[in-house]
């Protein structure tokens, strides 16, 4: 393509937007509204997921060992557990440590426990506290650990695992459904708006074709127009969401003091790592596809 043709295409793309400013504005508003809604939902879903994930990580399973198991054997079992992909982290508590913690918890600084002195009543209580990164895999992991040698008992909270697993699934399904619905609605609205704008220019496209313009030559300014509208339509809600998100987090934390320290909202930059490519991709993609398919209809002359 000649530089003059590229320059012409660029100029036409911008001219089209200016010439049909009402249509351009309608397109940008529609796109911005849809991406704004997707953005809000994306932020909510991410935060709910992150909170659920944090709770998951706080529910450990505890692994106890057979009487007489040596430190080396315990470490070997630990290494086998650690190698599992669903294990986020694990803490080892020796029998002495377990007794110390117990004493601290139930007797405090009193001397009541002194009677046991060198005779540790929790002698067989060396244990691993295993934290998972995906609580739905708890049963699977417990079965695996129980199959290992020297393991006497594995304590787990089946109820917590099931409840959290269900919440995770529910949030995922709802988020997929809502984002899917929003996408379908936005594509429908935008293709309608774009086709309205292009049908106004049907005659112009026809003239171009009669005098020997290739499909690409006719289409390029429209595609460029779609991309520009897409970028603007995505940039507006992304900027708005940036300020809105921080204000919303601040509002929730001041209004509901009780949540401070319990609920950690994801920082905005972390949300935007996913939201910026998603928003721009949606805007540009919808603008591009909308222009592509609607021009195609009018190019067969």
């Amino acid at each position: 393509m000649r530089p003059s043709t590229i320059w012409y295409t660029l100029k036409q793309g911008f001219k089209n937007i200016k010439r049909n400013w009402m249509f351009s504005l309608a397109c940008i508003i529609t796109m911005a509204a849809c991406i704004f809604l997707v953005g809000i939902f994306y932020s909510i879903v991410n935060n709910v997921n992150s909170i659920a994930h944090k709770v998951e990580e706080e529910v450990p399973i505890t692994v106890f060992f057979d009487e007489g198991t040596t430190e080396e054997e315990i470490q070997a079992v630990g290494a086998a557990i650690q190698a599992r992909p669903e294990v986020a982290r694990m803490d080892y508590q020796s029998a002495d440590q377990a007794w110390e913690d117990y004493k601290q918890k139930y007797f405090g600084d009193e001397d009541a426990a002194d009677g046991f002195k060198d005779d540790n009543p929790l002698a067989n209580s060396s244990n691993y506290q295993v934290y998972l990164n995906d609580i739905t895999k708890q049963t699977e992991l417990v079965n695996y650990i129980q199959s290992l040698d020297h393991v006497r008992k594995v304590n787990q909270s089946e109820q917590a695992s099931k409840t959290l697993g269900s919440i995770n699934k529910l949030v995922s399904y709802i988020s997929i459904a809502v984002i899917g619905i929003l996408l379908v609605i936005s594509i429908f609205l935008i293709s309608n708006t774009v086709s309205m704008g292009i049908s106004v220019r049907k005659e112009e496209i026809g003239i171009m074709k009669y005098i020997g313009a290739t499909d690409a030559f006719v289409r390029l300014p429209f595609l460029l127009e779609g991309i520009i509208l897409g970028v603007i339509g995505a940039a507006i809600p992304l900027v708005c969401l940036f300020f809105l998100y921080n204000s919303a987090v601040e509002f929730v934390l001041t209004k509901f003091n009780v949540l401070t320290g319990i609920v950690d909202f994801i920082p905005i930059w972390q949300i935007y790592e996913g939201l910026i490519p998603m928003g721009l991709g949606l805007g540009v993609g919808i603008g591009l596809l909308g222009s592509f398919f609607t021009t195609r209809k009018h190019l067969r002359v």
Partner: protein
Amino acid sequence: MIDLVDVSKSYGPGLPAVNHANLHVDKGEFVFVVGSSGSGKSTLIKLLMKELDSTNGTITVSGERLEKMKHRRVAKYRRKLGVVFQDFRLLKDRNVYENVAFAQRVIGRPTRVIRKRVPEVLQEVGLAGKYKAYPDELSGGEQQRVALARALVNRPDILLADEPTGNLDPKTSEEIMALMEQINDRGTTVLVVTHNKDIVNAMRKRVVTMHNGKIISDEKEGGYHEA
């Protein structure tokens, strides 16, 4: 230059719009295609422009077989043609210069060539002083001159005109036809579809008459006959 062999075009069941038409036009000829409304003359132009595909027969224009032509080849083929319509079909948001230059941009001519060629062709059609005007600011005759300039700017082999005087008064019609004759004198093949009796009878060119999709007469230096 133009060869139609047993060409038919049907839009559906019923009488075809063009019915077993045979026509041969040599390079540099000036041909009128005449006939009443619905005789098939506009369909004939659309077939030559490859806007429509024939349902039967073969069409060859400048050595290219149209019925076998792929969609992506059509644009390049149309650049060999200059086309003028009854309703001018100018881009209303662009001035005279831009309308004519557009035909050059489409074929990728560099800007310096466009700057030289467009004023030349506007001079030829008598619009040198109006290059900044927009279509709405021009009379019908002037708009048709712009359309002619646009059709000629790429020096086409063939000029196709579909009722070029349909929206013009008799005097302006004569001027436009005189311009077309000049273009023909320079070697361009001209095919004009019209039902303007006065012009056809005055110019004494080859006249092809259509009726119900059939070519019923083909006369050298002919006149307009009602079927």
